[in-house]
């Protein structure tokens, strides 16, 4: 049974980007320890058949990897796996990438993604508000958090919702270098 998974790196205090919308702290942490070699992302992504992200995340990827100048890098990262980008604004498209720009209700988009993914998983890249919208609709099955050895004190929140036990169940805890990987099963919303 394929799952819809929010897989993300986060600080110890639950921020996925710092107050300047930067991830420099993450790359530093990745290189400082033994995490780079142990990073489980490739194994995770091998089972992903479709993925979605919000506008801020998309723009960050676009800028960070200079994808408009070097569009082939997208395929290096994500192959031909189709991606959906949620945005109220008009965003630049990456030539050659399988991108669908959408907005509004996550449910019909999730249905389209599930059809495209077939028997593979759906990855919610971020940000937290988009993951929250999937959770609100009862469409989120799992959280996989790579906790970096960093506190930020402020920034973009991991998941700006209230979800407590027993809706969340810890199903995995693993150390990879200086990162702790926490996996939670997400139950349906109450009521």
């Amino acid at each position, binding site marked *: 049974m394929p799952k819809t998974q929010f897989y993300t790196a986060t600080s110890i205090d*639950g921020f996925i980007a710092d107050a300047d919308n930067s991830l420099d702290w993450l790359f*530093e942490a990745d290189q400082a*320890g033994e995490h780079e070699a142990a990073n489980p992302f490739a194994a995770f992504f091998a089972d992903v058949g479709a993925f979605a992200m919000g506008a801020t995340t998309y723009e960050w990827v676009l800028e960070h990897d200079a994808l408009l100048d070097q569009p082939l890098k997208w395929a290096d990262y994500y192959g031909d796996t189709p991606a959906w980008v949620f945005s109220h604004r008009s965003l630049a498209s990456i030539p050659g990438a399988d991108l669908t720009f959408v907005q509004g209700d996550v449910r019909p988009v999730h249905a389209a993604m599930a059809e495209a993914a077939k028997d593979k998983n759906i990855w919610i890249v971020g940000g937290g508000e988009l993951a929250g919208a999937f959770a609100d609709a009862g469409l989120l099955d799992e959280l996989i958090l790579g906790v970096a050895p960093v506190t930020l004190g402020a920034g973009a929140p991991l998941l700006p919702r209230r979800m407590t*036990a027993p809706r969340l169940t810890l199903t995995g805890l693993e*150390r990879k270098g200086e990162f702790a990987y926490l996996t939670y099963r997400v139950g349906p919303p109450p009521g």
Partner: protein
Amino acid sequence: MVVAKTQYYTATSIDGYTADRDNSLEWLFEVDEGTDNPFGAFFSGVGAFAMGAATYEWVLKNDNLLEEPENWHEMYGDVPCWVFTNRELPPVPDANVFMVSGDVRRVHDAMVVAAQGRNVWLAGGGELVGEFTDAGLLDEIILAIAPAVLGAGTPVLPRQLTSQQLALTHVAQMGQFAYLTYAVGSLARLGRHLAADALARKHAYR
């Protein structure tokens, strides 16, 4: 040789809050803690502890300490506790509690003496622990992460600590809690084994 540390041991949500926006811990008490909550073993190594005013007031109320002061002794025995406050707070009758304010360094010195070679526990909140961190006095963070996201509340540690200053030294699951332990400080960058050695030297020369 076991060497004394100053440790921040706390429960927290996944998203780094130690209490929700109503200053409640209900989300914490409904979590399956397993058969062997490690707090007892942790506290048996503690020789002195400190907390902020809001934490103290929460404990007072939650454990009904003004009417049942014996509850304090059941939890903390005679281990001395320093409460940082700028306000007048009611003392728990017959409890070994000192009300203090101001510079954490001076208080920490007194706590280390009182602890007699045992550890110093910082119970919270995050802002108080942040002041110890700023003064370079925090050696270890032990987080009991509950399976909950809260979205808002009291931050676990409202500071910026980089991967140069934190090293993950231990992970363990107990019931539904994930326990993460970090070495803190410039020593963290030396790696966890070296950090343990260096901490020993630092304390031995203190």
